[in-house]
């Protein structure tokens, strides 16, 4: 099992750092899956996470100048690691003006992801900072736990409002209640509602648009039969929603959510080189 990668371009480094910062805000520990072409940050829906799951995919070619990966075996050419993304975020934080950043899998006192940053300095030789981040190697027999979640059979799919606006609305609501109701219909309307004994607050968004989904067999999606005015709703933990919105450092190219009434909300945020899916289960 071997992994070595190098980033030389400052813009790629900044972008990669931003992705890591977003992941760090969403999960305390997660799984990093390395394949020949991609990196995945995966969080599976364990009770400890509040049932939340996350799937984030990056094309390695968009970030790394060099990328060498040798998986656990020839026919399973992948590596699965458990790590704390906050550590990676910290290591990259002070590396933004680096000449090069190398990331490799090493075995120090335990398996580690080592981030070696070469920084410019006034002297002839560069300054080197190394960060050894302990990781856990996930054995092959557990790899099945980390499969890509399928798109649920949703009732409504709708584009999200501008995330910054949505975030400031949710932030204020957070002070009033722990749960928020997210409802939307096929007419491009979405409401965010909180209800407590003393007060209820609703914010209405209109004209959002609904993404066209085509199912695999080419037939029309069953949602076409649905009454466009009828709202699908789910009551979710407001902090989880805020974590997702607050972690976004750059506006995504596309942002949408799929609502399975009273069951789950599936968020999809697409950037040019990164895709992020986030599932928040509905509360009882």
């Amino acid at each position, binding site marked *: 099992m071997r992994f070595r990668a190098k980033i030389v371009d400052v813009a790629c480094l900044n972008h990669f750092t931003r992705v890591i910062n977003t992941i760090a805000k969403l999960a305390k520990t997660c799984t990093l899956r390395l394949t020949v072409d991609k990196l995945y940050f995966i969080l599976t829906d364990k009770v400890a996470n509040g049932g939340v799951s996350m799937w984030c995919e990056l094309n390695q070619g968009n970030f790394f100048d060099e990328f060498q990966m040798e998986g656990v075996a020839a026919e399973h050419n992948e590596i699965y690691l458990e790590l704390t993304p906050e550590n990676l975020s910290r*290591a990259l934080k002070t590396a933004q003006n680096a000449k090069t950043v190398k990331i490799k899998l090493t075995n120090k*006192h335990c398996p580690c992801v080592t981030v070696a940053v070469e920084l410019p*300095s*006034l*002297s002839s*030789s560069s*300054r*080197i*900072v190394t960060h*050894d981040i302990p990781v856990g190697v996930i054995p092959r027999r557990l790899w099945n736990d980390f499969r890509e979640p399928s798109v649920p059979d949703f009732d409504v799919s709708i584009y999200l409002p501008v995330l910054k606006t949505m975030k400031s609305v949710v932030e204020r609501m957070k002070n009033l209640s722990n749960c928020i109701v997210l409802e939307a219909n096929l007419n491009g309307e979405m409401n965010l509602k909180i209800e407590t004994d003393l007060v209820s607050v609703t914010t209405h968004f209109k004209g959002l648009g609904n993404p066209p989904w085509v199912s695999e067999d080419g037939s029309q999606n069953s949602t076409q039969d649905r009454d466009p005015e009828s709202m699908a709703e789910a009551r979710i933990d407001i902090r989880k929603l805020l974590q997702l919105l607050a972690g976004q450092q750059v506006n995504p190219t596309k942002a949408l959510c799929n609502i399975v009434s009273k069951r789950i909300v599936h968020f999809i945020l697409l950037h040019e080189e990164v895709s992020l899916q986030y599932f928040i289960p509905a509360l009882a």
Partner: protein
Amino acid sequence: MRCLVTGGNVKVIGKAVHSLSRIGDELYVEPTEDGLSLRAVNSSRSAYACFLFAPLFFQLYEEGSLDPDGETFRCKVLMKSFLGVFRSLPSLEKMVEKCLISLNPRASRLVVQLHCKYGVTKTHNLSFQECELLQAVFDKELCANTLRAPARVLVDAVVHFPVTLAEVTLGVSPAGKVSFRNYLDEETEPSRTMVTELCLSEDEFQDIQVQQQSHVTFCLKEFRGLLSFAESSNLPLNIHFDSPGRPAIFTLSDPLLEVHLVLATLSDPNSSSQVHSTTLQARPANGAFPTATPDDDFTGDDIDSYMIAMETTCEEGLGLPSSPTFPQRHPHPGAGLESQSSAMESDLEGAVPGTPPQKKFRSLFFGSVLTPSQAGTHPGPSQDVLAEDSEGES
């Protein structure tokens, strides 16, 4: 005492107070003929700092008359109160034209008066306590290793460590490699904690003198406090250190100002240079030092021996070469003695609970004030008697 600070020097005093506030809760103020000294020490006696401003730093410097015993007046004030006067450095810079610090022993206040723009004068009357001499005994000439670098280099070095990191290990080798690494104490699990190491080459230093490979571990918080002062002063920072366990001394100097920061370093239980059998528990972060079995020698360590240790050093101290900034003091005769030694005792008792139990730094050695008769009654010991906290960790 009256000291008048004007212009840009007001901000320098402000920055010095900020730096000292990272160390201790009380600010010791002492006007001497060499200048005004501001000092602080932390509760576990593992960090000490002294800023000595020469008379020429001030537009007006009057040391004040000596008291009938021939001693200059010294006092301590609450750091919080003094810092409050200089809290906002940007507004100090913008608004304050002059700062007058005056001390009148007969009145009961230390007066800090800020003369600001637009005819505004802010007068702060701070209450003070008379206090014993606060003086760490150390000699940088005795340190085997010296580094000198612009503060900028060191600031850039520690930026890679998290703000919450408690201790950092500085390593040097005769080949000219200098490294900083975060220290993992025995409570942290190595398989879960990120280890960060920064290597600097000798070219980045203005001076390196290293006798043999060594590592010392000290508290980062107090070091950062000094670094932020050093960075704004543009002076190069000197680091003098020796083997683990012996204090590390950080200095800045220019004709008008001398700064000393002395930090205790973690001792390496297996170090051959260790004189004492009281050991510290220091599990190696990276295998560099072998794991030590705890040696609990604290049963014999009680307040009396601590007091004796202090007397001893005072006696020894008279024989040590004196550092130019800290002239040796004559023992303060009898009358105030009882209150002073009980003050020390209560300081000690107060110090014990304040010491974080898992950090066994050797406390720095302070000269005490005793009559010559008391000072004479003990065996000649080694140069630095290091007093452990009587709370032992098993």
